[in-house]
């Protein structure tokens, strides 16, 4: 049995990462990663993490996290008690998640997703977040999240979520 070594490591996006070469097959996502993610990072609205091929500047995939709030004027009492400001529910958004075409088919997407979830969970202990929300680009994206148990919003099927407490039950 041959076990190929897993070549990827997750890092916070930094200057030396080769963003130009990244291509996941979706022009929008590529453009976002090449041109916009840096700006968003600087403005502190998003934090990006990349999967790099260990020891190189090659980016094999990335995801971004951002804080969001969900207005909820008529929250059930049970939840209200747990919230300091009970008109909104805090959540973590996985804004984008993509894998470079050269690195697809190795389970890197699932790896990135779990990484994002675990990171959100760890963060939620400090800043508070009740769920992870994703905005899928299209049906393919949405079915990817669905496979991992994400629940689609009925009126907005491309937006899905997973309660933080579900994530907390994952083996760590």
């Amino acid at each position, binding site marked *: 049995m041959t076990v190929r070594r897993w070549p*990827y490591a997750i890092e916070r996006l930094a200057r030396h990462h080769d963003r130009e070469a990244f291509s996941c097959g979706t022009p929008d996502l590529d453009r976002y990663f090449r041109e916009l993610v840096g700006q968003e990072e600087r403005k502190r609205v998003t934090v990006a993490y990349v999967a790099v091929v260990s020891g190189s500047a090659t980016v094999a995939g990335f995801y971004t996290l951002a804080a969001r709030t969900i207005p909820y004027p008529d929250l059930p009492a049970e*939840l209200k008690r747990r919230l300091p400001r009970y008109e909104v529910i805090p959540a973590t958004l996985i804004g984008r998640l993509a894998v470079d075409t050269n690195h697809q088919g190795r389970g890197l997407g699932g790896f990135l997703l779990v990484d994002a979830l675990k990171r959100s969970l760890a963060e939620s202990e400090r800043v508070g977040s009740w769920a992870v929300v994703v905005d899928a680009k299209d049906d393919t994206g949405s079915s990817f999240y669905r496979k991992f148990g994400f629940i689609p919003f009925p009126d907005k099927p491309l937006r899905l979520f997973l309660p933080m407490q*579900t994530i907390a*039950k994952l*083996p760590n």
Partner: protein
Amino acid sequence: MSKDQKIIKVKVGLLELAKQLGNVSQACKVMGYSRDSFYRFNADSGHEQALDELALSHREAREVTDDELGGRNVRRLGTECRFEGTIGVRPLGIDGVRRLLHSRELFVRHTGELADARKVRGSRRAGPPGRGDARRARQEGSLRSRPPPGGQPEELRRKRVGHRTLTRTVIFRTEGGGEVTMTRSSPREERFDVRTTREQKKLLKRAADLQGRSLTDFVLTSAQEVARRTIAEHTILELSERDRKVFVASLLSPPAPNARLVRAAERHKRLTTE
């Protein structure tokens, strides 16, 4: 007497007079101040009292639609109590007033951020009707579909607002015809220049004219509207009623992670601890 002392004297005088007369409105009239100012001066002695003054009573929920408010500016209000009068909001802030109303269970719904609104101002100019009068009349007409009790709000509205002041107005409408107007104004200190083509300016000017507003006002409020929406959309996830039901149901009884996710998590663990 220093300038500050003079100001203080006036303030104290007003407060004293109000105490003596036992009537804030009258004291204000005598001293030539709005009730707005009174409650500002009175900031230290608690605004609970100010609210008590409003003769808050009976409540009944009712939403005021944009249309009723002249279809613009004052975006949304939720309201549900019957009371009369005007709250000078400055010292407490709109949120403060909201909290107070809330604590008295008089205020149930508030649908979101307060919209900026131009105060209905300088009502009834003397002289022949000019541009904007129709709009103003319409706006006032709708605000005034029922006569306000007391006449105090009237006074507040008539107060002229300087060009350099942006006034934020929120009107809480009530069942019995009362309204509470909350205003907050801030000085316009910043400026920026804009270059436009002749066509762009013409277009904007024309639109502004149609609404009887100044070009500046039109451009600013329109841009502000879009800016606010953009920002809100960026950090707020709006969900439909149905969406929220599903969401909260899952939060209340979170499902166990599915097999695939568990496998992925185990793999992630293996691969990262290697």
